[in-house]
C-alpha cells in the first residue's frame, strides 16, 4: 500500500495563523501510524494566495486533500478516514 503523505505548510502565513503547533504532528504521526504515513514540513504550499487568502490558514495537505484551518485533531481525522479506521 502506498504511504499517505502529509505536508504541513511552513509558509509564514500558515505558521502565524496557528500552524506553528502542527509541528506536533512530526512526533504524533510516526508514533500513531508507524510507516503507513509520512509527515513532512513544506515550504509555502501556495494555498493562502488563492481565493480564501489567510482567512482559512493554516493549511495541511493529506495526499491531494487540502485541510484548511488545520488542527492536529482535524489532520488525524482525515488520515484515519483514508486508512479506513
Amino acid at each position, binding site marked *: 500500500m502506498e504511504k499517505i503523505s502529509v505536508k504541513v505548510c511552513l509558509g509564514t502565513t500558515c*505558521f502565524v*495563523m496557528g500552524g*506553528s*503547533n502542527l509541528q506536533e504532528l512530526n512526533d504524533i504521526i510516526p508514533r500513531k501510524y508507524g510507516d503507513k504515513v509520512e509527515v513532512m514540513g513544506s515550504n*509555502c504550499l501556495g494555498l493562502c494566495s488563492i481565493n480564501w487568502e*489567510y*482567512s482559512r490558514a493554516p493549511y495541511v495537505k493529506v495526499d491531494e486533500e487540502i485541510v484548511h484551518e488545520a488542527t492536529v485533531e482535524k489532520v488525524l481525522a482525515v488520515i484515519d478516514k483514508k486508512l479506513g479506521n
Partner: protein
Amino acid sequence: MSNLGQAIHIKKEILIRIIKAFLSEDFEKQARLIPYVMRPKGMEVPYRCCVYKERAIIKDRTIAGLGFPIEEDDETVSLADYAREALEREEISDKNLTVLQAACKGCATNRIYVTDLCQGCVARPCVNSCKFGAISIVNGKSVIDDSKCKKCKMCVNACPYNAIVKVTVPCEDSCPVGAIKKDETGFASIDYEKCINCGKCTAACPFGAVHERSQIVDILKAMKSDKRVIALVAPSIVGQFPGTIYQLKTAMINSGFDDVFEVAQGADITANNEAKEFMERIEEGQDFMTTSCCAGYNQLIKKHLSEIQPFVSDTKTPMYYTAEIAKQHYPDAKIVFVSPCVAKRAEGFENENVDYVMNYEELGALFVAKKIQITELEETPFIVESSKQARIFGYSGGVAESVTMSLPDEELVKPCIINGLNKESIKTLKKYAATGKCEGGCNLVEVMCCEGGCIGGNATLNTQRIAKKAIDNLANNSQDIPKVE
C-alpha cells in the same frame, strides 16, 4: 500561545488587513472596508445573530488594532476617521488594553449557582456548610441568596451530587490582582490603577474581548519616514516563527526595519550584573534576592507589592541594556521592542530609549501582509552573538541559570522559581517579603509573570514545548556566558 483558536485568528486577520490597508493607495478607505471584506454580503454568519453584528464587532476590534480604546467609541466615528487620526497622532497611550464590551454579553456574572441536579436531599450539606446563611430550601430545592453569598464555594464542595457550581468569568478569574471586573452593567472593565499588564485576561477570554491597543500604525509610519527603525527582539522570539533566528533577521529587514538586535545581548549584561549584585547582597547578609527582568513582575511590585522592593535586584532588564546599545549605534532612530506580552508595552512606555512595542502577533501580521517567506531567505548574522544562557532567558528557569552560570562559584546559589503570577504565588512572595526568608533556603528567586516564562506570553505564536525546543537548539550552539570576577 493562547488556546482561543478562532478568536485569536480573527484578531490576527484584522491586524494583517490593517497593515495591508496602510500599505495600499488609500489607507482610510481600506480601513473602513475591513468589516465588509471580512464579512461580505451573503456570507454565512459564523458566530453572531447576523452579519451586521459581526461587522460591528469586527469594527470594534479594528479600533483596537488602530490603537484606540474600544470603550470610548460612540459608533458615529467611522474606521476611516480612526485611520486618519492614527496617522496624525504623535503620542501613544500608556493604557495598553481595551475591552470589546459588546462581547461580554455572552458571559454570565461570577456567582454560585444551584443547578437542576439538586436532589433536595434530607441531609442538606449545602445549607449546613454555608457560614453566611445564604442557602435556603424553596420548593424542596436549594436556593442561594446572592446578596448574602460570599462565593466561598463551601457549598460547592459540600454537595454530594455536584449540583452546585461556581459560574466563572474567565477574565476575572485569570487576573492575579483583581483589576478586571464585570461591573453592574454586565460589562467587563479594567481598573488601570490596579492592572499590571500581564495580559492573562487577553489570553483567557473565550470571546477574545480583551484587546491590546496596537502601535502598528505608528511603527509603519516610522518606517515610511526618513528615520531609521531598529527592532529589538526578545529572546523568546526563537521558535515563534518558521526558520532560524538569522533568517528572521533578514525577514525583519525585508519588512521595513533597518537593523535588528537580539535582546539576549542585553540579557548577558543583566545576568552578569545580577550575579555581581547577588554576591554583594549575600555577603551583606541578605537571605535572598529576586530577579528583576520580568515587566509584569515589576508592575506588580510597583502597584501591589512594594514591601518586596528591598529584596529585588536593582539590575536593569535586558530591554533596558539592549535599547541603550541600539540608541548608541543609531542615536536618531526609532527603537521598537518586539515582545511576547503586554507587560513589555508598559516597560517600553517608561523607557526613554524605546519608542514603540510590537508583539509577535503583530510582527507575524506584518510578514503575512508583506508576503515574506522566512524559510526561503538568506541568513543575516548578528554583530554580537549572545551567550547560551542569555538565549534561554525566555523560558522559566533560564534567568536563574544565567545568573548561576555567571558566578565564579555556582554553589553559592540555591535558586527557586515563581513560575507564573497568580493569587497563590503572590501570597508566597508577600510571605517572603514579610519574613525576609524563602522556603527551603532558596536565595535566588526567579519571578516570571507568565507560566513557563516569556514563551507563555499572551502574544506568543507557538506552543511552549516546540518553542522551548527551538530555543534549546539555538542555545546549545552558543558560547557559555562569561563569569564575573
